[in-house]
């Protein structure tokens, strides 16, 4: 059976289509799925389009933000309230890809892609997942990523995050070989709320350091309650690679990724270029 396109006007309808057909796939921005189609890895099955306006809406209420899964990187870059996410959104592709690539799609991008998700992970995002008909259920991003490879994970309708009070508390760095647009050697997002000169509740996430974006929990522990001084940064460097499982690919080896991760993390924390 060749490719068939089904258009759903509501999330429930789309989720129903996906639940009812194991081969059905959601077509969002197209940056992942269309390539499979063009190169012949996807030759048959149902593609589900979701036209519900809510799917592409950004809801901001105070520090709570809901990003529809169909929201593009370019849409995020146009919203001043989302300034803390701009670094990560700008790290995705060139201008055309940023007009197409979506928040939801980025959750499924395989390493070394998925830099926006790294920032979401540092913000402790909740993924809104709709299984069949009904209401979406919130799943922690970490949990979501752990189960990403499995089939029938449902329809991602939106992502919810709480923005930091100070946009500068979220630091983001993507290391790539090619400027300004290159895929990641690695990426780092670090949420560093400070109180009385000390970091409290740090959340640090890495991209391209494991099969999915991961939390750097040892680093978070090394930061918590500490001033961001040289001693702290030295301690962070020492534990920076804990829990990482980077791949060797066309842009870097696992050795290189492990070797330079502490360097880039230290530079990010100390505010160096």
């Amino acid at each position, binding site marked *: 059976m060749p490719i068939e396109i089904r258009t759903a006007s509501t999330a429930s309808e789309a989720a129903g289509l996906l639940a009812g057909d194991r081969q059905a796939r959601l077509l969002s*921005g197209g940056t992942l799925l*269309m390539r499979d189609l063009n190169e012949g890895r996807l030759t048959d099955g149902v593609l589900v*389009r979701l036209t519900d306006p809510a799917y592409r809406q950004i809801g901001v209420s105070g520090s709570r933000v809901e990003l529809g899964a169909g929201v593009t990187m370019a849409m995020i870059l146009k919203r001043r309230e989302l300034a803390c996410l701009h670094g990560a959104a700008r790290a995705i592709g*060139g*201008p*055309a890809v940023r*007009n*197409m690539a979506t928040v939801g799609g980025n959750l499924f991008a395989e390493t070394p892609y998925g830099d926006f998700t790294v920032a979401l992970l540092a913000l402790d995002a909740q993924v809104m997942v709709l299984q069949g008909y009904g209401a979406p259920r919130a799943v922690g991003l970490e949990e979501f990523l752990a189960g990403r490879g499995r089939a029938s994970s449902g329809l991602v309708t939106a992502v919810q995050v709480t923005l930091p009070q100070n946009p500068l508390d979220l630091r983001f760095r993507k290391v790539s070989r090619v400027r300004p*647009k290159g895929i990641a050697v690695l990426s780092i997002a670090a949420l560093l709320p400070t109180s009385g000169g000390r970091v409290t509740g740090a959340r640090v996430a890495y991209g391209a350091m494991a099969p999915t974006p991961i939390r750097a929990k040892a680093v978070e522990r090394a930061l918590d309650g500490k001033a961001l001084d040289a001693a702290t940064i030295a301690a962070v460097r020492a534990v920076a690679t804990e829990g990482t499982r980077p791949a060797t690919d066309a842009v870097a080896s696992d050795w290189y990724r492990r070797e330079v991760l502490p360097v880039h993390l230290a530079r990010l924390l100390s505010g160096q270029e």
Partner: protein
Amino acid sequence: MAKVPVQFRLNGSDRAAFVAPADNLLTLLRRGLNEFGPKYGCGQGTCGTCTVLIDGELQLSCLTLAATCEGRHVETVSGMANGPTLHPIQQAFMEHFAAQCGFCTPGMLTAARALLEANPTPSREEVIDGISGNICRCTGYEAIIEAILAAARSGQVRRA
């Protein structure tokens, strides 16, 4: 294979075609409508040679399902010139020798157009970002960057 109809505007003219559900916009333009301005360079979203404007927004036609263009306005390099008068960015590319093999040029011009229509006075860094999705294997980019900056300086590109 069951084909579906799609109607849209192409460079200001109404067009209609039947497309296979799996066809991307690039295939529709090139093979369905003989609009050869946008090029096939990768089909992966990594080279930018197929770049078009859809409803004024920069998009990659190889990653766009043709059927989803129903009712939309697709603009390509072929629509840039005003009759025999070249668009200021085209003129600047000529003057700065900003093309060699010419294969990336349609996509480059379209990216430059989107950039200048949104930001008529870009910095060099903004120009570099504006073309960062478009691969050129011949020029080393410098002439292209210079041409876009010159087109901006000419002040002839109007905000969309």
